[in-house]
């Protein structure tokens, strides 16, 4: 009885909240925004070095956001790995000798790698970019994990950590280098903008793919003979 009442109250509150929010959204929608940022972006797009305005915003105008965002990814992956107590993050139980999966893997993984490459390359001019590419890369990894391919690079040792940190580190190094060359951090020197952005994107793709894959496989179930935690 009491539980029903509580549920009812919560639902009522949520409905009221939705209503209030809808009214506010409607209200805001009546007037145009006071500043038209898209016009500014379009104006400065040529200076940004890329043709895709979203990429320009992500990796040039608001690159600091993106840097922190990659930080978030690394943090999540790191915490995930810290939960695992095994020498490898792989789950051999999952490894099957399923013919179908094996065939899928043989055909799909190269295809996915190609797609990832395309997305990365396209990112600067057309829709696409490091995150999308990285996700596809990770998906390829997942497929490999389900198949028979052992993935030794996923040992939570130095290699994995190096992979995780690579994109992030390159981003930082570019920031540093740009500061030496130009006015400010992440202020890419003229003419180099596109090269640097594409470089960053490429390493990021690798790193993001690895992070996502690590997060996927770092599920802490696959522990064999975990030591009793001495306290």
């Amino acid at each position, binding site marked *: 009885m009491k539980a029903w009442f509580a549920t009812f109250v919560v639902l009522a509150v949520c409905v009221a909240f939705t209503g209030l929010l809808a009214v506010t959204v409607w209200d805001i929608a009546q007037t145009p925004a*006071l500043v038209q940022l898209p016009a500014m972006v379009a104006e400065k797009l040529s200076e940004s070095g890329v043709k895709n305005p979203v990429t320009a915003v992500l990796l040039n105008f608001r690159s600091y956001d993106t840097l922190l965002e990659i930080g978030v990814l690394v*943090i999540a992956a790191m915490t995930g790995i810290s939960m695992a*107590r095994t020498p490898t993050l792989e789950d051999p139980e999952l490894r099957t000798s399923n013919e179908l999966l094996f065939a899928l893997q043989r055909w799909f993984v190269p295809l996915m790698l190609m797609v990832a490459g395309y997305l990365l390359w396209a990112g600067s001019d057309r829709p696409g970019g490091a995150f999308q590419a990285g996700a596809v890369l990770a998906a390829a990894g997942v497929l490999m994990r389900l198949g028979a391919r052992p993935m030794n690079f996923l040992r939570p040792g130095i290699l994995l*950590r190096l992979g995780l940190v690579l994109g992030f580190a390159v981003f930082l190094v570019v920031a540093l280098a740009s500061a030496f060359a130009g006015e400010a951090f992440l202020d890419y020197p003229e003419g180099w903008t596109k090269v640097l952005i594409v470089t960053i994107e490429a390493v990021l793709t690798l790193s993001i793919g690895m992070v996502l894959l690590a997060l996927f496989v770092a599920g802490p179930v696959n522990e064999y003979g975990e030591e009793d935690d001495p306290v």
Partner: protein
Amino acid sequence: MTTWLMAGLLFTPLAWAAITLLLSFRNGRWVSWLGMLVQVLVSVGVWLLVVDRGEFYHGLGGWDAPLGIELRVDGLAIIFVLLTATVATACGWHAGMYLDSDKPWQKHFWPLFWFLWAALNSVWLSGDLFNLYVGLEVITLTAVGLVAVGGQADALRAALRYLLVALVGSMAYLLGVALVYGEFGVLSLAVVRELQAENGVGMTLPLALMLGGLAVKSALFPMHGWLPPAHGVAKSPVSGLMSGLVVKASFYIAARLWLELGHEAGSLALAQVLGVLGSAAVVWGSWLALRQKKLKQVVAYSSVAQIGYLFLLFPLTLSVSEAVSLQAQQGVTLQVVSHALAKGAMFLAAGNLILSVRSGEVDALAGVGRFLPFSLFSFGLAGVSLMGLPPSGGFAAKWLLLQASLASGQWWWALVLLAGGLLSALYVFRIYQASFVQDSDLDEFYHPPRSLELVPMILALLALGLGLVVDPMLTLLGRPFGEGSVP
């Protein structure tokens, strides 16, 4: 120069994070100690810069607002940067010796620590609503990671609860940001304030959403339940970081928002509600702190109470005279600083005491007074600041808030301040008392190394002496949540 100092604050900690990620705990320790030195120097450098040059805005990547992300470097931000440098260095120094370097998962401590520092600095400086959101999320995830590292069941439970609550808080904040962007089309806080003042647009719901989300993340009563388990179960240096700095980040953003946008968008009811909830936190948090059996839980619940005071900022700065508002802002800033120092000292000292008596219970402290442990003394001195007794920073904060509430005619907050001080005395003296008990069979007492004991003592002395050097600090604060003009 400015560019390099800004980079020193924002990017160098990230670099330390990247380096320590590749190292073991022991090696990471050396790198981190070096890093702390560098960060402290950079922080002091920025401080001198602001003293020399005054407040300024700095566009990151050469892009000014509204297109790019702009940093706002003013007295308040510098105070928080310096506070972070102090408390984080203390906790990091302590952690390097305190944490067990044989545990394989401890190597994740340093990168998380550095990510946290980087994100804290970014929150203090950023003047961009969305960038603040990303900064907050980095802080949340690192804090959760730091609590969960080690992966014991109770740590996981605390970390999960913390994560879920914090995520919802962030969502509320982000929703507010989305609405603000819809209305104004910009994300720079300074530009939003100008537009709002020019056009007189009321944004009560977005502001309420953002403040609500941030209040949840700052563990405002009645959404405080996640804090004590998380702060209590974490390792002591981590608890110090969490109580001292992490909780303050979301409050800091709330305060900035309120003082920039509150005059137009805030309402008296909202301010009073926040004040009342803060007061309830003071009373309820203290009461629960009194009832805890575990030492660190006492300290953690005390954080709930102490954070409650901060929310008096909202009623004391709305529709009051400029002077009263300034007094309230100064009082709250002081409260943040002194609480961070005192709580850092308390958690570190509690960690040492637990190490000494090999138990986390309050009652296990019986007879400890006989061994004249240095850490007990640090704990006691930090307690003076929590109780708001002179000459501590807590006292100065209380004094300023008292003045503000009496001058604004809202005398009921004065009563809350006084009652809160007494309530905190109850739980602080409970611990003192436990240590004075004479008839205990405690004959074995491990004295931790002096270097481990020195850190909390320094923090405690800083908190205690803060009240006497308030004037220079408030001068730096100037017009704390200032009216600085947009370049």
